[in-house]
């Protein structure tokens, strides 16, 4: 009797899944891209990743300790933020740059707003944009095989032809984790299969982006330009963003229709930034602007409660 009369506020059903477990699986899903990045760019990439992850964890622990909070480094969210930030950096950055980025991600974007679950934008992307605006030269200097080269997207924007196959495999210049579309797809499919992320955001993001790229090709009188589409889909941070950044639990909508709307919004924004914007890449800006609109999206897509919304007969 005591059991049945127990009164508590929702949620009433609890899962065994813990934060650390989910974060751990996302980190596992990022491993193919990480390992490929290290293979592709060498030991420097590995050191950059290591510095970023360690400084993120240290900043989180220090802040929580100094503020008299419970130190929640064990939930791996700081590790994931560090890893995502590192994958968004070029391989040849000086060591202080990832440290500054980690400071911004953990202290400014995450902890000052209340820690995990309270941040209004993706910490890793916030930090990337902070670094990109502050140190544009360093953040857009890409080297590949010790030669400074343009990223495929930049070449594409300049009107040159690109090798779609090498973009798919990842043997091109770019940030540490974004080059290999296939490695990111493996990780993304793993997350979809384990149910960590929902298909709606990545599918509608990539889908709406592809539709707009095709329409743009048609509008330019080139017909349906498949290689242009493929180059845009596999180039830059689109895959990384669609599967790992846009689907961040804290900064994406929780309603099913909201996720669809969010995905389409990101697709449109990325298309606009990439095609009409000043720089070749637009995924990170698209996602953080999308993050800011999430509360509005959720407000207009609240599902109707059962029994509500019917026409009243009077």
């Amino acid at each position, binding site marked *: 009797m005591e059991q049945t009369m127990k009164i508590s506020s929702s949620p009433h059903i609890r899962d065994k899944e813990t934060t650390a477990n989910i974060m751990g699986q996302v980190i596992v899903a990022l491993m193919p891209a990480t390992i490929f990045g290290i293979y592709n760019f060498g030991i420097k990439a590995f050191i950059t990743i290591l510095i970023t992850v360690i400084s993120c964890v240290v900043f989180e622990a220090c802040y929580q300790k100094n503020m008299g909070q419970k130190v929640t480094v064990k939930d791996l969210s700081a590790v994931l933020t560090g890893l995502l930030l590192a994958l968004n950096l070029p391989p040849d950055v000086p060591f202080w740059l990832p440290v500054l980025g980690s400071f911004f991600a953990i202290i400014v974007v995450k902890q000052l707003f209340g820690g995990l679950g309270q941040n209004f934008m993706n910490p890793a992307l916030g930090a990337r944009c*902070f670094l990109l605006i502050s140190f544009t030269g*360093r953040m857009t200097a890409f080297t590949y095989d010790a030669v400074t080269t343009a990223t495929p997207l930049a070449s594409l924007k300049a009107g040159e032809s690109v090798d779609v196959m090498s973009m798919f495999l990842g043997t091109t210049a770019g940030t540490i984790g974004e080059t290999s579309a296939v490695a990111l797809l493996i990780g993304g499919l793993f997350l979809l299969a384990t149910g960590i992320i929902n298909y709606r955001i990545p599918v509608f993001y990539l889908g709406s982006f592809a539709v707009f790229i095709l329409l743009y090709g048609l509008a330019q009188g080139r017909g349906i330009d498949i290689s242009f589409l493929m180059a845009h889909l596999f180039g830059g941070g689109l895959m990384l963003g669609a599967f790992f950044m846009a689907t961040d639990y804290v900064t994406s909508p929780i309603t099913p229709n909201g996720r669809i709307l969010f995905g389409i919004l990101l697709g449109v924004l990325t298309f606009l930034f990439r095609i009409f914007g000043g720089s070749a890449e637009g995924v990170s800006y698209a996602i953080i602007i999308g993050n800011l609109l999430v509360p509005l999206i959720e407000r207009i897509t609240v599902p109707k409660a059962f029994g509500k919304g019917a026409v009243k007969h009077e």
Partner: protein
Amino acid sequence: MNKTWERLKCGMVTENPTFVQMLGMCPTMAVTTSAINGLGMGLTTTVILILSNMMISALRKVIPDKVRIPAYIVVVASFVTIVQFLLEGFVPSLYDSLGIYIPLIVVNCIILGRAESYASKNNIWLSMFDGIGMGLGFTVGLTAIGIFRELFGSGSIFGLRFMPKSYEPVTILILAPGAFFVLACIVAVQNKVRKYKEDDVKKGVLFCEKENGCEVCTNGMCKGKLFTAESVAREKEEADNARKEKQKNPSEKM
């Protein structure tokens, strides 16, 4: 004389327009990309604020209550126009870098706020000092933000290089977001300091001089709001009692 001094202190510290009242945020954010711009904007506003405060105070019995805001705007706009021409003629470099924000001083809420809340109710002398205090407070605020932004955003202060050669400027600080970061940090730090002071006042560490009147009290944090002389005496007594109590039975400490 005390009141004059109090006006100055009020404007610069206790009711600093930038850091406490959070007024005039638009020029604060926009022009503080360097220390010299912040200083220039602050001084320009100060001059206009002093002149408009005096003029409005002189006209306070003439201006009909119903049309007072348009009347203030006319007064402020006239002074802004004069100052704008003077700047254009004598400091063209500052005039160029401040740009649209000089004519926008007309609608600066510090100036209208002081006109409405102070100058229209007080005599010319006090209004002038209110203008000086508030203006200098604004100048200090803008210059402080400008110094931080210039130091970290381009490695110099007032155009003089301060950072070592190897320092790479954090460009975002001289762009719009940097203004928000720097302002937020300064306000956070000064709120923390202020809070300590308020706690001190509550603990009775800062003494209240109510017997001599709040006007001359050196404790600017309280101004008769936080406590009265009686409450201080009572609190002190209670604290003393508690201490004596503790000394009597040290075993009950834990």
